[in-house]
């Protein structure tokens, strides 16, 4: 993707994080943005972020070259219940760049594959050219993970699925009492996905979503990322759905 870059940073010392957490990245003289960690949580020697150029700071980050220096503070925020979900089936539903904060989950699950039941990854992108981590998706297909990729639009030479990602859910074998679902993507896509999961019988306490709000301080002080009674930076970005459901569909929030 032209406006998306994956950045591998070398930290001065070991950097540990949990899947779902984010860092504040500071481009000196320009500003700071919250970007989720998209690398392997088991690898403490690298800090990996996938960034889309949407504003001045993120655009500058996507133009970074080898040996450039960036300020990093973090990791912050809540995390996906990956360790807590051992023994369950896992359904990961990602839309667009929402695959980035879920990639650490996939790494962690694959590293401990025997501790999980069925694992399904459903990924929706705008078009074939916008598919993230294409090579890895291909590689994961060969492992014991059910990977389905779909795009919203494609030309006739695209051999994969065309359609929206929530529409894939009726085809995934789901045992609702033993499934944990982790969902990340644009809010409309998450809303549709949560509906589709609930139609399959997955209860709200087994659905986790990652919220996105404008973050400034990242430590629960400034209030920029307030979401109902919660601060996305401190109480999120990963929320158990039943805890935020009352606020999820309030338009003003």
């Amino acid at each position, binding site marked *: 993707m032209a406006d998306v870059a994956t950045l591998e940073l070398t930290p001065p010392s070991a950097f540990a994080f949990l899947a779902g957490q984010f860092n504040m990245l500071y481009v000196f003289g320009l500003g700071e943005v919250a970007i989720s960690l998209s690398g392997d949580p088991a690898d403490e020697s690298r800090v990996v972020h996938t960034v889309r150029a949407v504003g001045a700071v993120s655009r500058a980050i996507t133009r970074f070259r080898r040996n450039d220096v960036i300020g990093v503070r973090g990791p912050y925020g809540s995390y996906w219940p990956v360790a807590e979900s051992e023994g369950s089936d896992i359904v990961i539903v990602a839309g667009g760049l929402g695959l980035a904060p879920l990639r650490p989950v996939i790494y962690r699950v694959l590293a401990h594959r025997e501790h999980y039941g069925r694992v399904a990854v459903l990924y929706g992108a705008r078009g074939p050219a916008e598919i993230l981590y294409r090579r890895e998706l291909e590689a994961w297909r060969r492992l014991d993970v059910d990977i389905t990729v779909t795009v919203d*639009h494609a030309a006739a030479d695209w051999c994969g699925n065309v359609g929206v990602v929530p*529409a894939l859910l009726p085809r995934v074998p789901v045992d609702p009492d033993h499934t944990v679902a982790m969902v990340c993507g644009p809010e409309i896509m998450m809303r549709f996905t949560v509906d589709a999961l609930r139609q399959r019988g997955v209860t709200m306490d087994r659905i986790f979503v990652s919220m996105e709000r404008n973050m400034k301080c990242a430590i629960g002080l400034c209030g920029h990322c307030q979401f109902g009674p919660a601060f996305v930076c401190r109480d999120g970005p990963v929320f158990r759905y039943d805890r935020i459901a009352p606020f999820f569909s309030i338009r003003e929030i």
Partner: protein
Amino acid sequence: MQGLERIVLGQPFFVGLGPEFGAAISGCARNVRFAAGEYLFREDEPANEFYLIRHGTVALELHSPGQQPIVVATLREGDILDGSWLVPPYCWTFDARAFELVRVLGVDARCLREKCEADHDLGYELMKRFAGAMGERLRATRLQVADVYGQRRS
């Protein structure tokens, strides 16, 4: 129960349908096979048959002169193709291409329409199923049109 009737009642789309309705539908039905690349139908052709996919993947395409067709959806086992056969002018509104070997249950549209007119219970049962399937598809299409992946940052 005849083989075709069993196939009809075994389709997810017909789940819960009474055996008398199964017999009525299968009376108009046949098994059809399409090779990879073959078109099940093309836009504006008469929708003479209602298709239900039993095996394989079908790409729904919109064509545009001088350009590659745009695939708007892929349908697979258990999906119905469209409701164009049900409402006038009974014409397909897109192209449907078999992506691989495709086996479908084909139901003669005129035969089924006549049975639905004669037996409104059957007609209502089918209409409820079509309304549900079309509603799902409309909802998915709305999400598709919303183009939600344009603004996301990670």
